């Protein structure tokens, strides 16, 4: 496979994952706005921060406003994480790697692009938002289904999965990073349970509300939520789960090509730390520091994969 193709697959799936994550963030913000008594738009600031695009938003709009924030996250091509930007970039990459993906996957991506481009041709009103978000979810499922149902389990598949899980690990870590102060027990909060809205934001943005309740029987504690999102290997968006998948796919590549690269050593280190880590220890050493290190490691790993498999040169 061409190095360029591997890179195209990797980014195609990163962008697909990103479009879905962005849609989920909008859903979270929208849901909280609906169920909350006071009238400010704080949750939208938080949504923009989580996606790391708050600075772009404020440059353009000055102050926070629900409709503008939703539009910025859904349709603004100046926002590289907006649903429309991400899905356009995913499709552009899919065109580039057309020879590596099955007709079904290509058509699913192309169809997704066409459907969403039309659905997002004009600003989406609050009334239509749930339907549009459902459409985005459905389309993501379509692409994922086509991929799992039709693609060979070879190096092509591995690069797709690497893109998906690197993006996901990055995304979940960012959510934790933006919200770490919520999870840090402050003096007044020790022993008290978290503010409803705050933990809901976190769990909803990783589609983990139900799962968390099911696992913890409704008990919500900062340490419990952090443990769930960092170390729980049953949770498909946790750091441990994502890193585990990255490790597996890199191991497949090592096996298929018969070559061990620096990225293999890097992922082994990262996976080991998550396997043996304890949430109590993380809180002792500082959650923020842990997340900052993790984000840096994931970014470095991405660059190493890019170099080892010659995405660019």
């Amino acid at each position, binding site marked *: 496979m061409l*190095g360029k193709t591997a890179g195209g697959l990797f980014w195609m799936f990163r962008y697909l994952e990103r479009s879905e994550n962005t849609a989920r963030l909008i859903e979270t913000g929208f849901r909280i706005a609906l169920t909350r008594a006071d009238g400010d738009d704080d949750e939208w600031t938080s949504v923009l921060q989580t996606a790391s695009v708050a600075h772009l938003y404020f440059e353009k709009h000055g102050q926070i406003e629900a409709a503008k924030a939703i539009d910025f996250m859904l349709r603004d091509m100046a926002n590289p994480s907006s649903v429309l930007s991400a899905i356009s970039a995913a499709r552009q990459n899919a065109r580039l790697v057309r020879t590596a993906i099955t007709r079904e996957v290509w058509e699913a991506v*192309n169809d997704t692009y066409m459907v969403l481009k039309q659905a997002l041709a004009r600003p989406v009103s609050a009334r239509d938002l749930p339907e549009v978000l459902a459409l985005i979810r459905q389309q993501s499922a379509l692409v994922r289904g086509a991929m799992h149902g039709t693609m060979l389990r070879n190096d092509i598949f591995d690069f797709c999965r690497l893109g998906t899980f690197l993006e996901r690990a990055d995304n979940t870590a960012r959510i934790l990073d933006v919200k770490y102060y919520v999870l840090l027990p402050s003096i007044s909060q020790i022993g008290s349970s978290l503010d409803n809205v705050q933990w809901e934001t976190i769990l909803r943005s990783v589609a983990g509300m139900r799962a968390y309740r099911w696992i913890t029987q409704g008990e919500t504690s900062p340490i419990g939520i952090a443990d769930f999102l960092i170390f729980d290997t049953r949770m498909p968006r946790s750091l441990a789960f994502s890193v585990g998948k990255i490790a597996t796919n890199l191991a497949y590549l090592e096996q298929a090509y018969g070559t061990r690269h620096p990225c293999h050593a890097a992922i082994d280190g990262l996976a080991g730390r998550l396997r043996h880590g304890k949430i109590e220890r993380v809180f002792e050493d500082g959650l923020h520091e842990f997340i900052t290190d993790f984000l840096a490691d994931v970014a470095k790993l991405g660059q190493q994969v890019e170099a080892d498999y010659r995405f660019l040169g």
Partner: protein
Amino acid sequence: MSDTPIFFDEMYQGGGAPRAPYAGYDGWFRGEDLRDLRKKSADAERFFRRTGITFNVYGQAEADERLIPFDLVPRIISGREWARLTRGIEQRVRAINAFLHDIYHRQEILRAGRVPVDLIAKNAAFLPQMIGMAPPGGVYTHIVGVDLVRTGEDEFFVLEDNARTPSGVSYMLENRETMLQMFPELFTRIKVQPVQDYPVNLHRSLAASAPRDCSPDCTVAVLTPGIHNSAYFEHAFLADQMGVELVEGHDIRITGGKVQMRTTQGYKPIDVLYRRVDDDFLDPLNFRPDSLLGVPGVMDVYRAGGITIANAPGTGIADDKAIYSYMPDIVEFYTGEKAILQNVPTWRCSEADALAYVLDHLSELVVKEVHGSGGYGMLVGPAASKKELAAFRAKLTAKPANYIAQPTLALSTVPILTQAGLAPRHVDLRPYVLVAPDKITITPGGLTRVALKKGSLVVNSSQGGGTKDTWVLEE
């Protein structure tokens, strides 16, 4: 030519009865509901969009990926007609390859005075870099598209040869795929020769022309100018169908005397490069130095016998519109036989007598630029306004050698489906020919292009043309 030309309709005879090849289709069509068919037509468009069978329009945003309109009434050719056409096409393609070999070696045809020396020596499509060079397997044009038009029952003419990088074959394949999906029952009623082997044959044909010292599992790759090229879809489609890599210039470098592509496991040699990049852009070290699309030094590897380039550089000298008028002589010179396929009578405006005739009859003729393509820079006399004629007359007088002229042909028609039902429209046909050292393969049918505008004779997609599935019947 009379004021109301009678056009040959390939489907219906004068009295409205279907011609023999269309009898089966006509029977089926009469049993169909027009509304259903129009709905199918809309389905087909969705299918094409979803599949991404689009072409990019230069200089426009990606929003402007256009569809080439597809008409669902097939163009049908009998097995007998096709057999005669293939004999003519094969003869012509053999002659083109012999001509190219001769032009880049002993130039016997020039010495014999059958083609003027100036026409070659002063031609931009002639590449001095190819002189004395023997391409692997002796093949110059691995892929040829021969554009044919029809004017009567047994009257076919070659309109032009495409010996550089003929495009459109993906439409031939996808049109058939679409028809099979929309009307499976038709293909059980009517036996149509398949076209789906084209990618396999293309791969086999390219591999057969590999350099002699090529590895046992010869590596073919398709070279594209990139995602913004108007035919990118086709490049990706063909690479995908052949199961080979689609490379761009920056994926390639030359080491150890081989052209190598950057893979996830290091650099791997390429044996055959099916390039969809023009000669000028192929190698910045040997041709245009500002080209970013090509592979620096690929010509040097080629001359040393380290790679096959398909089509060979410099084949444009054979499909030049000024050379075209000499094709009957060229065929005869190299095959010793009369050309089976006729040329359209052509006036070379470089010749004083011809120019005088053309200027006198401008409103009756079609005038083309010698190096033009895609229907640009062309005058269709009978359809032109007085102002257009005057403007063209000025251009023609200024640079006569830049033009050729031909009579306005009474192109045959095949019906298309319109809101009101069937309506005749003018068509042409581009069969695709694969040339390997040991054999020539012609896919039955080819791409039928159709002028969708009533009365229009210009079928190019860039000028509002569409396409049809082309059927060659089993006998």
